[in-house]
């Protein structure tokens, strides 16, 4: 009986494809909206996490003043770096960071870029890898050697053709020799080009570019924590250590701040998740409206097909068979609608993911849920029209014009 109802329902759908299309369009759009939003939302969350990984995982950044902006608060010194390295538990590496922005010149080419002065510890902290050459070592930092590791953007701009290793770059009055090129990281989440930089030993920057040997001249200190050590504890330790070193009284606020990249990542991904759920809920409403669309068209079609129902009953269809036929029709339509919606969402996700530069992650779970949900909508909203069809009287139905 079920198989028969299925054949009959399929024939009915085939008989009027326009009606079938109108019936399912709402479900198609609803399913496509839900699946697309959830998939893209997940992609965005993953992409934010990946961006933060690029800058450095388990990364704490110590900056002067409060917040991200420029500040008149005192900078850090190399002594701070040493004390942090010795006194704070749970840290893997500490690196100083002094930055300046100068014109980098090589032959005909020139580019205004960030010069980062640091120690070899910085490379693992910030997840830098080499595409060519080598990093500088501690000896070169002590010596203040004129060596540089350049980002991919600098390689492209200053050395468009030919091997940059061993070539010279002029920064103000100093010529540095390129010893390494880093693997491109691309853009940071906030739009900065992470590869537009030249990394040189901290001492070289202090002596030759800043032109002064002030001890208090580190714009940032970067700390990477052990994987299984809570970064909150490290932040707390950093805070109390720095307050003590700066002789801040109880009433004074911190004149430095510690940013935890993992916390930022968590905050961003949790807000993305909330956003995704909200949008998915809105899309879910559209799926519900799609279901009501099915009910509408099915109700109209029961009226329109009254005579057909009468014929079926006259030739011996029982009420339950007519009911099953309409129910199977509704469920078949909504399932087909669900599949079309999933296919549409797939296309949309691939396209939109490319457009916004987020990764496309196929999520079998949300696709499964959307499909089951659309089938359920078929049963739910197909039930009333089916019952109405089954309750028709064959004589009246046959007489219906």
């Amino acid at each position, binding site marked *: 009986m079920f198989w028969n109802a299925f054949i009959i329902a399929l024939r009915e759908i085939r*008989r009027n494809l326009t009606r079938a299309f109108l019936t399912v369009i709402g479900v198609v759009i609803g399913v496509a909206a839900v699946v697309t939003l959830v998939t893209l939302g997940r992609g965005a969350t993953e992409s934010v996490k990946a961006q933060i990984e690029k800058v450095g995982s388990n990364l704490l950044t110590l900056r002067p003043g409060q917040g991200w902006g420029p500040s008149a608060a005192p900078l850090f010194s190399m002594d701070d770096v040493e004390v942090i390295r010795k006194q704070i538990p749970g840290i893997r590496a500490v690196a100083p960071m002094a930055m300046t922005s100068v014109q980098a010149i090589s032959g005909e080419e020139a580019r205004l870029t960030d010069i980062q002065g640091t120690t070899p510890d910085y490379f693992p902290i910030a997840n830098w890898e080499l595409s060519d050459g080598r990093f500088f070592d501690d000896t070169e930092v002590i010596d203040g050697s004129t060596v540089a590791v350049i980002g991919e953007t600098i390689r492209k701009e200053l050395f468009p053709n030919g091997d940059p290793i061993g070539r010279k770059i002029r920064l103000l009055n100093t010529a540095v020799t390129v010893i390494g090129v880093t693997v491109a990281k691309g853009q940071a989440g906030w739009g900065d080009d992470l590869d537009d930089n030249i990394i040189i030993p901290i001492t070289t920057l202090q002596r030759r570019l800043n032109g002064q040997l002030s001890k208090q001249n580190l714009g940032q200190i970067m700390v990477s924590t052990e994987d299984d050590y809570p970064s909150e504890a490290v932040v707390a330790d950093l805070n109390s250590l720095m307050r003590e070193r700066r002789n801040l009284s109880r009433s004074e606020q911190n004149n430095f701040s510690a940013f935890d990249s993992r916390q930022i990542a968590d905050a961003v991904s949790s807000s993305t998740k909330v956003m995704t759920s909200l949008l998915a809920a809105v899309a879910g409403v559209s799926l519900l409206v799609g279901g009501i669309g099915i009910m509408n068209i099915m109700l109209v079609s029961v009226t329109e097909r009254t005579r057909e129902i009468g014929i079926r009953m006259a*030739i*011996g269809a029982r009420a339950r068979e007519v009911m099953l036929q309409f129910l199977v029709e509704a469920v078949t339509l909504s399932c087909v609608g669900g599949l079309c919606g999933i296919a549409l969402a797939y296309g949309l996700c691939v396209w939109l993911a490319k457009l916004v530069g987020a990764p496309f992650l196929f999520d079998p779970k949300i696709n499964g849920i959307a499909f089951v949900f659309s089938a359920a909508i078929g049963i739910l909203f197909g039930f009333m029209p089916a019952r109405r069809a089954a309750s028709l009287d064959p004589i009246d139905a046959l007489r219906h014009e």
Partner: protein
Amino acid sequence: MSSLIELRDLTKTYGRGDAAFKALRGVDMDIGRGEFIAVMGPSGSGKSTLMNLLGCLDTPTSGSYRFDGIAVESLNKDQRSLLRRHALGFIFQGFNLLARTSALENVELPLLYRGYSRKQRHDLARKALASVGLPDKERNTPSELSGGQQQRVAIARAIVTNPGTLFADEPTGNLDTRTTGEVMDLLCRLNEDLGITVIMVTHEDEVARYAKRIIHVRDGLIGSDVANPRRNTPTH
């Protein structure tokens, strides 16, 4: 001849109280196997009500209806559906074929409800279409067929299950004189050759003349019930 149909004091009342309308007021009738009956009568006489009752589409208010020994008045809706499915065939004035559906699929429809296999459905439907003289119209939809052809498809649909009894409600009402003759010849042949009992409602004397017995219904009662002496014989 054993009776196929026995009506005893059958009544049908629509509505209640003052608005009640007695469509049938106590009908007694016996119909044997293999008869060809024309039911005639002016509109409002109760002939449609009688046909609906005979066709097991409706239940009487009182009285008894035996169809092949089965007490139809005590059957429920589903049981009457099954009786129609297995023993009765229907032809209507408006043909009542499914639109946008091929002749073959229209004829297959009753077999679907009988749960026949795809191949059985196909074979039986083709045979039925051939027997009504439309072996080459299998793929055509009703809108591609003439009125006479549509009614013949409808007849094929009615006989595809090999029912013992055929109910025809004004089968030629929508047809011109020539196709009326074709359809009536076909019904006569089914009656003569296959022994199918045909019960037909009509208001045209020309059409009633094909029947072996003519029953007139007047004011909810049988007015006259006579054998048809001047019977039109099939023209082929």
